[in-house]
């Protein structure tokens, strides 16, 4: 039986090392699997496709949510409405990244590490970016090329105008 671990170290793709508390690491299903498997003794976990910049953000999210969970448990289980509201506000601020690029990287990191809360949050943030925008604006955000011919575009627009809801 290995001695109880209080912290683990994660290594970004740039080679930088970061310490995470176990509670924070448990926010990630991937890391949780490793931690709860007694046969693996953890020293350092490399996360090859996550850069330092993104990893810092991800760890910040995990720590905040782990702290919130611990506080809720201490209060006897039910999160009060104001605390839930506060966490939502924190999440909203957290997702205000300067460049959309960062947002996609965070989404992919959350997907890779299986952090459900962050994954849903990032998906919703990207969806909010798309909401209410024209195709042209969306293409600009995602840096995509319009590969429809004018006739195809015309036909699709007509379909959408009279038949879709």
């Amino acid at each position, binding site marked *: 039986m290995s001695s109880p671990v209080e912290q683990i170290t994660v290594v970004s793709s740039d080679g930088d090392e970061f310490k995470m508390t176990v509670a924070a690491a448990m926010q990630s299903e991937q890391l949780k699997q490793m931690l709860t498997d007694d046969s693996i003794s953890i020293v350092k976990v490399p996360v090859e496709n996550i850069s330092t910049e993104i990893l810092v953000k991800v760890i910040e999210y995990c720590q905040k949510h782990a702290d919130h969970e611990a506080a809720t448990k201490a209060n006897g289980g039910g999160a009060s*409405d104001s605390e839930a*509201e506060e966490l*939502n*506000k924190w999440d909203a601020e957290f997702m205000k990244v300067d460049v*959309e*690029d960062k947002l*996609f990287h965070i*989404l*992919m990191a959350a*997907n890779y590490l299986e952090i459900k809360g962050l*994954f849903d949050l990032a*998906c*919703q943030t*990207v*969806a909010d970016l*798309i*909401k*209410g*925008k*024209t*195709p042209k604006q*969306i*293409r600009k955000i*995602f*840096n*995509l*090329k*319009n*590969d*429809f011919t004018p006739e195809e*575009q015309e036909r*699709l*627009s007509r*379909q*959408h*105008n*009279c*038949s*879709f*809801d």
Partner: protein
Amino acid sequence: MDNMLCDELLQEIFMKLPPSSSSSVSLVSKRWLSLFRSSRTSLSLRLLPPFPGVASLCSLLSDHSSLSSLSLFLSSDSAATAASTDSAVSDYILAAVSSCCPRLRALRFMSGPVSLSSLNSLSTACTRLTSLCINLPRPISLRWVLSFPSLRELAITWSSGGQEIDPSNQLEVWESDEIGTELGLQSLCLVGIRRDDWGVGWLWSSCKKLKKLRLQSCQGIGGPYSSFVQCLQNLEEVELRTCRSVIDGVLFHLAENCQFLNSLLVYDGGSRDGLLYFFSHCRSNLQKLDLRLPLDLNNDHLSAMASKLRGLLSLRLQNCCLVTGEGLKLLGTSGASSGLEELALINCDVVERESGLLATLGQHLRQLRKLDLSHNELLLDKEFISMSVSCTHLSDLKLRGCKGLTNAAIVAVLRSCKFLENVDIMHCGGIESEAIEVFVEKCPKLRRINVEENKLSDEAKTWASNRFIEVVV
């Protein structure tokens, strides 16, 4: 950034988009169009003449490979269009659906009547169909239901128009062949059965597992009552809308045969005697009652409810102008209502006429969670407040169209009802922006408010945004 997000991630994002974004997303690029369509599990189409050809419709439906739920509305351009043309169009479109959407679980097909052979094709192709809403021709023929073994919800409309059928020509012979069939149907909605229609009897006697029944605009039940009673054993919810001619018989048999009925809705067509019989003899423990009966509901019925019912949870009365305070007080203070959680008195002028009624009701219904007093235009602050001071546990409050209420009402509600989450004060001319602003700021548990946009000050909008309150304008 090009192609950074893999297909699955993109589809996860699409799932979080509202329907209004679908046209923009589809026009971004071919990859997005294809991923978006294949990620959608439900689709709603309105087709206008000239209707799309089979090829283009099939191509569209096949792109939506994950589709499990489809609603199709075929609009006709003129009422003069012959029913037979409608039928041909409906048939070929239904055929396209059958061939392109084999995984469909739910289909709503609102069009002209479809032929029975189209239904047969549908049953062979879409074997997982659990919910079907369809329009059928006369004469009534229901044997095809047997070919949809997974069906749990069925809604059929027989539209008006079409020839009168001579009842003696009906195929009663095959009905007796089907005795002993048991269908898995749990929910049934039938619209437009005419007085002389026949052929539903077999369906009644085969639906022993029926839990929910809705009849709309029916002048008859399409079969003998001896068959009808066979589907009543396990019935839990019944809705009868605009079925004046048949309601006596139905209510009688419901009272006699249902033991598990917990929800009844009767709109726009009742019968004083039928209702009285039902309420006096009903053996079930009715929990939800929703009545819109301007001509038929009176104090006798309320009195019968008061003595017979035990565990009423929800009572909704709309446009019931024959009811007086005496009847309501009797019901409201009786043991029947001691557990009442939801009360709606919508456009019931008794609430405006009789002062003190709401106060009495409030005192006896302190545990009320939902209150709806919409469209009582003459309702005064004093009356409303006398009720709200007692009903401190309210979570839902609707006062739509209560033009007589002023800011005082909102101020009082803020003081007494600390658990309010959903509030509707649309069209309340007397309630002004300042009061609404304070309300949005201070109401502790508010989650959602329905109010006109021009009554929301900028401060109110800021408060709503900061507190994550949904504003419906």
